[in-house]
């Protein structure tokens, strides 16, 4: 533990100097994005019944292959990964794990986000460049 006293209490404007408050704000924003996305996702999948043999769904899925949509998908992956890993951090803290290592916990979670994002980004950019996925 650092012997240097804290310069700001976690109240008022000082609150926003703490990593945890930014973690909280981004958690809330990513959560709201994901709520909106889930609604859109259920609606999109329901196009399976909007026309015979799912023609609407098949046509819609083709439009999702254009580079702009692939990049939006990748942005969604960022929201999912951040929300998931920050959520894991919160559950671990609830269980009393890492309570005295707040910042290490947060930045470890973010490291996992970056690594997972790297895999999804690699596949997405390969798809944009070549029109095909990656065979592992």
């Amino acid at each position, binding site marked *: 533990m650092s012997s240097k006293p804290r310069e700001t209490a*976690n109240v008022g404007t000082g609150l926003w100097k703490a990593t*945890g408050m930014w973690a909280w704000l981004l958690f*809330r924003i990513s*959560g*709201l994005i*994901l*709520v909106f996305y*889930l*609604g859109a996702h*259920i609606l999109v*999948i*329901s196009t*399976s*019944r909007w026309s015979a*043999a*799912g023609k609407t*769904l*098949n046509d819609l*899925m*083709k439009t*999702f*292959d254009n580079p702009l949509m692939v990049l939006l*998908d990748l942005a969604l*992956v960022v929201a*999912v990964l951040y929300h*998931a890993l920050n*959520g*894991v951090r919160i*559950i671990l803290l*609830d269980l009393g794990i890492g309570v005295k290592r707040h910042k290490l916990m947060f930045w470890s979670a973010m490291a996992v986000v970056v690594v997972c994002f790297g*895999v*999804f980004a690699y*596949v*997405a950019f390969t*798809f944009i460049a070549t*029109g*095909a*996925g*990656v065979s592992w």
Partner: protein
Amino acid sequence: MKVEVISTHRGGMWSWLFQRITAVLLIVCLAIHLILTHIANIGQIDMDNIGARLANHGLTAVDIILLAAGVFHALNGLRNVLMDYWFSSRTRALWLTIGLWVIGLVAFGYGIWALWPWIG
């Protein structure tokens, strides 16, 4: 000892507990879902491609868990956010809870209806 209270969990114990249970379900099932759709089958998703996956009962279960846990987790989370702003009073919070349950059950039913061409 100075104690900082960063969250009082006004949503209630069950809301708190089920948010965590659904979170764990979502992490596992969403990992499977995203690896199969965004990595293994990128650019190939259509009726037949989805059908081939949902022929597997395990993956059907994954999708139904995602739908149920996802809708609950999303609306329960939204409830926590809204209770911080416009639905902080007890009466308003109750109406919010009832409204979100109606929306959630309709969304779940509609989601099953949407999956029916593959799982029916």
